[in-house]
């Protein structure tokens, strides 16, 4: 059975584990995305910001999978993220289609802002 054997690294000096590092990155991405959804005005930037939030959530799941690894990393979060990536891109495509319609129908590319 072609399951790759994981190289066991020694648990000597307590440095940050890989999954912990990427867990922190995941938190960072989630918060960058969340702030940008509120602060960016342009519709395209808001869509990109939503994708960054999604990337943070996926990264969290995969780093948990790495933490729970025994011989192999936990395959359940992997499966969830694979389908998640494909579903997220379809949602983004839908959002882009909506943004394009808003732009075409109203000639504007952002909500709110200062009245001209």
């Amino acid at each position, binding site marked *: 059975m*072609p*399951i790759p054997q994981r190289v066991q690294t020694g648990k000597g000096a307590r*440095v940050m584990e890989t999954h912990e590092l*990427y867990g922190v990155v995941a938190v960072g991405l989630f918060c960058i995305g969340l702030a940008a959804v509120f602060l960016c005005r342009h519709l395209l930037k808001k869509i*990109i910001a939503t994708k960054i939030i999604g990337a943070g959530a996926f990264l969290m799941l995969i780093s948990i999978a790495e933490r729970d690894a025994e011989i192999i990393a936990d395959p359940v979060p992997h499966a969830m993220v694979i*389908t998640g990536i494909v579903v997220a891109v379809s949602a983004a495509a839908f959002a882009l289609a909506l943004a394009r*319609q808003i732009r075409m129908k109203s000639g504007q590319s952002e909500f709110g802002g200062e*009245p001209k």
Partner: protein
Amino acid sequence: MSVLNLIIDTLLALLILGLALRAVAVQSLYQSAISFIAFGLMLALAWARLAAPDVALAEAAIGAGLLGVLLIHSLRDFAGEDDGEAAGFAIKLGQYPRLPSFFILLGIGIFSGVLLVAVLQMPDGGGLTAASVTALADSGVDHPVTAVLLNYRSYDTWLEIGVLVIAMLAIFCAGGFEGFRRGQWRPRQDLIIARFARLLAPLMVLVAGYLLWLGKAYPGGAFQAGVVLGAAGIILQMAGWHFVEAMSRWLWQWGLAIGFAFFLFAGIGFMAFDLAFLEYPAAHAGILILWVESFATLSIGLTMTCFYVYFTGMDADTSAGANGKGGAGHGNA
């Protein structure tokens, strides 16, 4: 974790965070899109570092490839000045109350602190690694991720393929069928793109088939294969072989739905033999999964290509239409 690994991971982590920040903070939309594409690629490297090659494959094709193409195409629509109330309706300014940025940043700062503590103190759950490896012998495949996707949690996967169909329907609702007019089969005369497509497209179809077959025992499978197939379709469309428009409408609509439909068909079919919904007979699980995956690959690939066709089709429409944007032709098919 050795020091060298730590250095690589730290650099990658900084790069990911930096690119994400740049993608939303930079003024130019074009730079924003390019940073986001680079961000997708770096994320694919992070998946590889976290021992998730399946995810890395899907992310590299989607995050950097497909989404980049869609974003850059969308940039064209947003080029130029906003022209206020030029068209039928205007977004009412001032109807969207805005908090001062200071409060938003403060709130998110507190939130990120709480989240960080929660992540670092997360209790060990143990995960499902052991359970999924134990049941592998009965699943019909040898790769745990494929087993999870198409056997243990096939109900989830089935519905997620359904989401793709719904996303495509929603896009049609938003923009209509205008991008999908028939009879636009006109290969480009451009030497580079035509040669490129001739060389690459058959190879990519081959790679997609190989990934699909590989999913039985190694990283790969329907989603990765579908995305590669979609990329091949997009390259063909770029070179002017408009095969989606050349197909009759019912054919590509069935193509979009067949993955979902066959999954359902296989799930219900075996209920006649006293099995649960979406349960496969253990003796034939392997070959059944391959069939379900094949149709899913076809549907996913076609959906990805249709996203592209929708966006470029509308481009052709706006540049060819004499009325310009906001004309009567848009929005209603």
